[in-house]
């Protein structure tokens, strides 16, 4: 089986599953088909790794016709559909943007397409393998989880129309589009898959068809369309410079140097910024949390937004050393710091996760924008670790929400008693986000060591130091909330379905395993990729690696100490001034009144409030982007 066949399978097979989903009505057939498809996709992604990891960059020549014509046709149909929807819901901005984008598309097709001869349309290199693994493994796991989740979802929300066939169909179309995105070398194809993911996100956010969901879906659509317009502008620019379309090959564009590639790189990176929901475009991701949790897990934390940073990381060699690259990095860095601060003041679990995602994406972009070889290494590591840990967190929060009926962190107190296994998994997921020696800390550590040798690195180190401590704060207080031992609470997690447990167990294991084997991933996939581009590569020193491994093993052994303390333990109630306490923190207060103790975390909304910091972030980042735009204009003219 050739690698090309594997790639085509990954792009086309999910479409077949999507077709089945769209026509099937019953749930049982659906579950079996999804599970089988998920296993198939996972296995094939793994095969791509096995057959491709040692081959370096492979480029596949495929005849672009009739694929390109089909793509153009689909894009026009979708544009018409969005136009219709935009007019029906009276969303002026969407209507304007889709008309603008469709206009650019038509202009491109009519004026330039005859002269285009692009042969190298698909490719595979180590970075694509990494992205494919993330999409194939984590994506399929989330689809399997989604079956059980959506059943409970419709059980709880009988007012929402059951359009699950559409839901799952779009999920698989989305997977196909993501595979297409990371395997495409032809920028036109990348743009096509990019737009498909935008539409999938739009349809999935608006799934519940409530007014809030509809508004948020159009917000996401408008911001992503804005990015799409910038993408289209970049394509037109490239084809004006070279009408044969050779510059539309990604690998050729990146290696042709800054003079040629800078302008389109910045425009496409702007599209990446909108898709990755960095400030000033972060509101769409926060608003997208109204969607069912599998959507948040798949699109809005591990895959679609990763497409945004994927394209920016691809262009990092072009951006490195330039002022525009530095500005993009500053946008990322500002987003990281401010989103981390805002997350402190949020008590809605999904919003905390959303802001944490935005912050981490900002950090990845900050590394990519400065673009030295060791920062690229950090960026790719961050992508991997974040995708795994964050999707685990989203799925856990989804399950918890269905059991306790609330997304508020304050209602998750004592989860270790009420849902012990789930609380442990959340603990590991959160540890994976901010505790040494897990992945994200490794990345932050490597980031500091990399920024220190980069130009203007001191600004980014300051951002990392302050933003990083903010992340410690909000994760720790959430962790503390769920491990508080509130006695006499009933265990409510036995009703969770088996498939969900399987998915959650696998993801939890992945968090730990990837942390253990990351030196292997680095040497097999990441380092050759960077070596290829920059001629030198980065790695953590051997001594540090062994120390971290020892710490991780120590950390995994420590919980066994609980066995030693079981005998002869004496228990006492917590100190409440000696007051008579009954049951769950109900104490006898003054005047003989029985009161209940309520402990809540600090949210410090006057220091870290969402509105104020959002205002700060949006204005700062708009200023930076406008500055970059002015510089770009200077280059063009």
């Amino acid at each position: 089986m050739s690698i090309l066949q594997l790639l085509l399978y990954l792009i086309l097979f999910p479409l077949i599953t999507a077709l089945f989903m769209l026509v099937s009505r019953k749930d049982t057939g659906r579950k079996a088909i999804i599970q089988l498809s998920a296993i198939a996709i996972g296995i094939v992604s793994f095969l791509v790794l096995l057959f491709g990891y040692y081959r370096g960059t492979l480029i596949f020549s495929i005849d672009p016709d009739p694929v390109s014509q089909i793509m153009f046709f689909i894009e026009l149909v979708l544009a018409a559909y969005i136009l219709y929807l935009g007019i029906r819901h009276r969303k002026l901005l969407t209507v304007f943007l889709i008309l603008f984008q469709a206009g650019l598309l038509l202009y491109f097709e009519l004026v330039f397409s005859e002269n285009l001869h692009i042969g190298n349309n698909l490719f595979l290199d180590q970075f694509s393998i990494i992205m494919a693994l993330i999409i194939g493994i984590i994506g399929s796991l989330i689809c399997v989880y989604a079956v059980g989740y959506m059943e409970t979802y419709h059980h709880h929300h009988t007012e929402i129309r059951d359009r699950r066939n559409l839901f799952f169909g779009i999920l698989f179309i989305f997977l196909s589009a993501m595979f297409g995105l990371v395997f495409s070398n032809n920028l036109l194809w990348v743009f096509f898959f990019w737009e498909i993911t935008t539409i999938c996100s739009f349809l999935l956010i608006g799934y519940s068809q409530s007014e809030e969901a509809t508004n948020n879906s159009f917000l996401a659509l408008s911001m992503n369309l804005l990015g799409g317009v910038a993408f289209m502008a970049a394509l037109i620019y490239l084809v004006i410079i070279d009408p044969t379309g050779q510059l539309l090959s990604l690998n050729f564009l990146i290696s042709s140097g800054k003079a040629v590639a800078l302008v389109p790189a910045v425009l496409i990176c702007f599209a990446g910024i909108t898709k990755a929901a960095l400030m000033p475009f972060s509101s769409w991701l926060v608003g997208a949390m109204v969607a069912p949790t599998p959507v948040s897990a798949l699109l809005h934390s591990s895959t679609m937004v990763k497409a945004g940073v994927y394209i920016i990381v691809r262009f990092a060699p072009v951006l490195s050393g330039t002022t525009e690259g530095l500005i993009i990095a500053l946008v990322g860095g500002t987003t990281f710091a401010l989103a981390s601060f805002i997350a402190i003041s949020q008590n809605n679990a999904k919003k905390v996760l959303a802001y944490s995602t935005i912050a981490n994406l900002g950090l990845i972009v900050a590394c990519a924008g400065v673009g030295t070889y060791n920062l690229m290494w950090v960026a790719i590591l961050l992508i991997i670790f974040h995708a795994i840990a964050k999707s685990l967190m989203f799925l856990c929060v989804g399950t918890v929400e269905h059991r306790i009926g609330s997304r508020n962190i304050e209602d998750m107190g004592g989860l270790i008693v009420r849902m012990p296994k789930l609380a442990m998994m959340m603990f590991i997921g959160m540890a994976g986000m901010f505790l040494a020696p897990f992945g994200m800390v490794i990345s932050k550590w490597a980031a500091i060591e990399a920024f220190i040798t980069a130009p203007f690195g001191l600004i980014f180190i300051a951002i990392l130091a302050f933003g990083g401590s903010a992340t410690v704060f909000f994760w720790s207080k959430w962790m503390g909330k769920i491990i508080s031992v509130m006695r006499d609470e009933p265990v409510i997690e036995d009703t969770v379905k088996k498939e969900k447990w399987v998915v959650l167990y696998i993801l939890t294991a992945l968090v730990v395993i990837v942390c253990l084997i990351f030196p292997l991933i680095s040497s097999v996939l990441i380092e050759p990729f960077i070596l290829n581009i920059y001629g030198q590569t980065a790695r953590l020193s051997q001594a540090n690696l062994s120390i971290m491994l020892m710490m991780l093993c120590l950390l995994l052994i420590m919980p066994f100490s609980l066995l030693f303390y079981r005998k002869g333990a004496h228990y006492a109630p917590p100190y409440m001034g000696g007051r008579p306490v009954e049951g769950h923190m109900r104490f006898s207060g003054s005047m003989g009144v029985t009161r209940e103790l309520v402990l809540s975390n600090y949210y410090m909304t006057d220091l870290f409030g969402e509105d104020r910091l959002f205002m700060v972030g949006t204005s700062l980042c708009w200023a930076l982007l406008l500055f970059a735009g002015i510089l770009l204009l200077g280059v063009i003219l």
Partner: protein
Amino acid sequence: MTYLKKSPWLLHYDASSCNGCDIEVLAALTPIYDVERFGIINTGNPKHADIFLVTGSVNTQNKQVLINTYEQIPEPKVVIAIGICATSGGIFRECYNILGGIDKVIPVDVYVTGCAARPESIIDGVVTALGILEQKRLAMKTKTKTARAADAR
């Protein structure tokens, strides 16, 4: 060699005292008497304490509080009743709300009488209590030894 004698930590609780004895207890911490030179610290919560100093007598409201606080002190522990109110109810003995001295509710090891008890008497009482504490510690050690031997058999 026990270290309980070298580092006894107090917990001071005012049951229903007029604060006369409490002021004398706190006076013991000041530079004039400076009990910290014996390693004595006035801790804030029972879980850190060895010696439970109680002033004032028991009434219906603080009866359960006394018991709760006493139970939250880890073994080995001693209780010192400071002042005549804690010992037997003092001049408030026949009031309608007073149940009597604190030995009605928790076991007392040392009684320091006085109204108010003088700091020197309080320190003397604490020193006496340290000897009792040592006995309790030995008893606790042999008890756990026999318990472990019983488990082994």
